């Protein structure tokens, strides 16, 4: 229970932010917080709260897994790499050959999101393949 106290500000923030399917569980001395955020800004806010409680995330006593919910109707995503191009690969994995690139801030078409980590996309040039989902932001 001590861990729940330590991260109370975080779970309170998650509740206040309207995180859905929120689950807070402690197992073998580690706290697991899972849930779905309405948007990326809400998710980032929770990470800032986490960083305040545990600066630089060095304690290793929390796994914060908050995903951003995506409407099933969403068909496009923006490339949100820091500045570089995003690789498009033949299959879902960095061991797969690169078949194309999407530019930073480019809007690309979502073909299939059945894999949580790797989304199947298509660029406006017609290149099709898998991109790392963490570098894609669904467009409303």
């Amino acid at each position: 229970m001590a861990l729940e106290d330590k991260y109370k500000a975080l779970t309170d923030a998650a509740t206040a932010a309207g995180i859905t399917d929120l689950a807070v569980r402690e197992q073998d001395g580690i706290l697991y917080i899972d849930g779905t955020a309405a948007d990326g800004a809400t998710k980032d806010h929770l990470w800032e709260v986490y960083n305040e409680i545990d600066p630089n995330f060095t304690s290793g006593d929390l796994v914060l897994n908050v995903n951003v919910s995506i409407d099933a109707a969403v068909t496009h995503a923006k490339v949100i790499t820091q500045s570089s191009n995003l690789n498009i690969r033949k299959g879902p994995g960095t061991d797969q050959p690169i078949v194309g690139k999407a530019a930073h801030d480019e809007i690309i078409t979502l073909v299939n999101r059945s894999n949580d980590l790797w989304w199947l996309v298509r660029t406006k040039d017609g290149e099709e393949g898998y991109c790392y989902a963490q570098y894609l932001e669904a467009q409303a």
Partner: protein
Amino acid sequence: MKTTKFLMSMVIATTLFFVGCKPKDADLQAAIQAKEAAGITVAVAKGDVTLTGEVADDAAKVKAEEIAKAEKGVKSVINSLTIEQEKPVVIAEDPILTKNVADATKDFPTVKAEVKDGVVLLTGEIKKASLITLMQHLSALKPKKIDNKLTVK
């Protein structure tokens, strides 16, 4: 005549009794059901309310009972609600986690990541601005723990 009148009044009284009682239970049931949270089933028999179903915690169980008791005409409340059992945390298997961690850390060349028994051990160094991004990526992979020994520059 007297007997007929008496019988008539008995019939009316009996009818009123049933008419007055049966819909009351149904009305009570509907009124309470509308106020209770999803997942709670309300049953009413002669003013006695029975609550069944699953709720998240004790507080929700107590609240559900209070809602039922507050309804006018309720004689008693039998609280048979159960507390939902927490699902155990799912931890990714090492081979899957190892592959996913390799994918997630590929863009952080100064970071070395090792996976053992679900624990992701991070060594090397990282820029402070990139740390949150890396941690976000790794936390989505269902690790048991992220052991962060990175030097933050």
